């Protein structure tokens, strides 16, 4: 009967008491979220200390030392360049390929072919990066298929070890991301396309519009709001270039182009035991992320689109 009483105005504590089951069902879980998401923020103090695990949080304070070190470190500059370059390539590739594939799938009228194509293109999304990195490294090996095709096309004379080519690394990551996620990313565009009024297409057809002009003048404008929101939200994640694929594919030859900010953090923390510097790097990334996401969310709201929070 407790919930029925809610309709009558009552004091906060009284209502809370009648809703004690809801409290029991939610508060412990939210406390869990606080423990695992918000409490670790206290660890950011490490960035302002000479943190030694033995001393814990009683380690000496050093102010902004590690941030000063960070911004004067040539490696950090390189790492920032790689992070931004890779996430920019990922962003551009993701959008163009996913929109292109969605438009193509939309033109496939045979239901069976369409669902087969979708099933196959969604599949790589469910594979682990370990598996994907293995597939990439065998495709790009010196006796791999990629070299065979390039040789057959006459583009190269001798097979190359592509993972040993520093300059190729960003593009390898970009195309690997496309391979893994392009099908998955079409889902949201296909949903947007399916909500476009079919009468528009019929009218255009009667007016003599060809396929491509229908795509350009009806489909693309129809999914524009979706594209804009996704683009803005993705710009908010520009500091995230991915971690696993770089970690798994990097080697001594390509590391100048492979190391992203996450790799920098792991390297300094795990290998060198410099937790303070690693935390400063991670903290810098998180703070920039939050600012970018807030801005993205605000812009998205200004444009009259859905907000995320």
């Amino acid at each position: 009967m407790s919930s029925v009483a809610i309709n009558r105005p009552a004091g906060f504590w009284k209502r809370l008491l009648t809703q004690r089951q809801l409290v029991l069902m939610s508060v412990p879980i939210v406390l869990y979220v606080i423990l695992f998401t918000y409490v670790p923020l206290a660890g950011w103090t490490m960035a302002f200390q000479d943190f030694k695990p033995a001393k814990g949080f009683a380690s000496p304070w050093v102010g902004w030392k590690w941030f000063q070190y960070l911004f004067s470190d040539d490696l950090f500059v390189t790492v920032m360049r790689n992070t931004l370059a890779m996430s920019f390539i990922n962003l551009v590739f993701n959008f163009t390929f996913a929109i292109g594939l969605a438009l193509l799938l939309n033109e496939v009228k045979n239901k069976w072919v369409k669902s087969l194509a979708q099933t196959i293109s969604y599949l790589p999304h469910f594979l682990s990066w370990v598996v994907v990195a293995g597939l990439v490294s065998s495709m790009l090996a010196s006796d791999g298929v990629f070299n065979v095709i390039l040789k057959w096309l006459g583009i190269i004379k001798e097979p190359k070890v592509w993972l040993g080519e520093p300059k190729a690394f960003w593009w390898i990551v970009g195309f690997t991301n496309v391979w893994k996620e392009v099908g998955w990313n079409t889902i949201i565009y296909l949903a947007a396309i399916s909500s476009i009024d079919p009468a528009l297409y019929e009218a255009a057809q009667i007016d003599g519009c060809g396929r491509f002009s229908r795509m350009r003048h009806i489909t693309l404008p129809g999914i524009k709001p979706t594209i804009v929101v996704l683009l803005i939200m993705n710009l908010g994640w520009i500091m995230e270039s991915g971690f696993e694929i770089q970690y798994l594919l990097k080697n001594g030859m390509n590391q100048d182009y492979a190391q992203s900010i996450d790799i920098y953090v792991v390297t300094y923390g795990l290998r060198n035991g410099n937790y303070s510097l690693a935390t400063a790097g991670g903290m810098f990334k998180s703070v920039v992320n939050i600012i970018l996401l807030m801005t993205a969310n605000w812009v998205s709201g200004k444009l009259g689109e859905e907000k995320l929070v």
Partner: protein
Amino acid sequence: MTLKLGRRRYLSAKAFLDEAVFGVAKALVLTSIILVTLYPFWNTIIVSFNQAIDTTRGGLYLWPRIWTITNFKSIWVSANVPHALSISVARALCSTVLNLFLTTMLAYALSRREFVLRRPLTIIVLLSMYVNAGLFPNYFLIKNLHLNGTFWVYVVPTLISAFNFIVIRTYIKTIPESLFESARIDGTSDFRIFISFVLPLCKPVLATVALFVAVGAWNAWFDTLLYNSNKTELFTLQYQLMALLQQSMSQSRSAADVNAAGMAANIAASMVTPVSIRAAGTIIATIPILVVYPFLQKYFVMGMNVGSIKE
């Protein structure tokens, strides 16, 4: 009238050509996409069933030359696959069951409009999507909770995700309120309503979220590296595969070195190479996903669309 007809005929001829060219282009692009997606798997299957030393000769693209199951036998023993498999399955199961139960319970409680704590609790959960303290602050939390070196480090830190919460809550909101209303008037408690109405009604969305959670748990390896790298009995399949990947990549690099001869002798003695074992491992790690995934496809497409509606 004649003019109009003529115009129409001209159009249909153009449209016909348009259609034909487009049809061919479409088929070509679609076929190449499917080939590019599937070939790496096919290649892996070939390598995994081909004799390892023969594979090092290269030129293996379409069909195995010397069939063998030695690669599978070898990884089965060397990576202790049965055990790693059981750890992977256990973590995927525990994560999925606990995730679904807790996230749905939270989503139901926070979907009740009259709940006085609804707004503050919802904000805390949603904001957690944007808050990330970073690798080492999280690492020290896990250490302080003494979760490292235990199986539970695979399950406990990832029980609630804000994204799954949004997906499930959005779905619960589509259930007509009247369904719960009568139960409430009968004096059924909220927990009972959750167990006997909400959970069964949410089956389609839970199938989606179950897929996301299970795949995420199945594919994870970095937590093993971070927290359990000295506990061989807690190694997961993906972690073993990661170790093989690193091994095979350093091998292919050093194979280019002068000591390739010594390496060849080494390989000849063991009859397997990291590349071939890795191929076999990849197949073993991928099969469960291939088996489960087609059955859940109709659900996850729906779940993705619900999730994208957000607020």
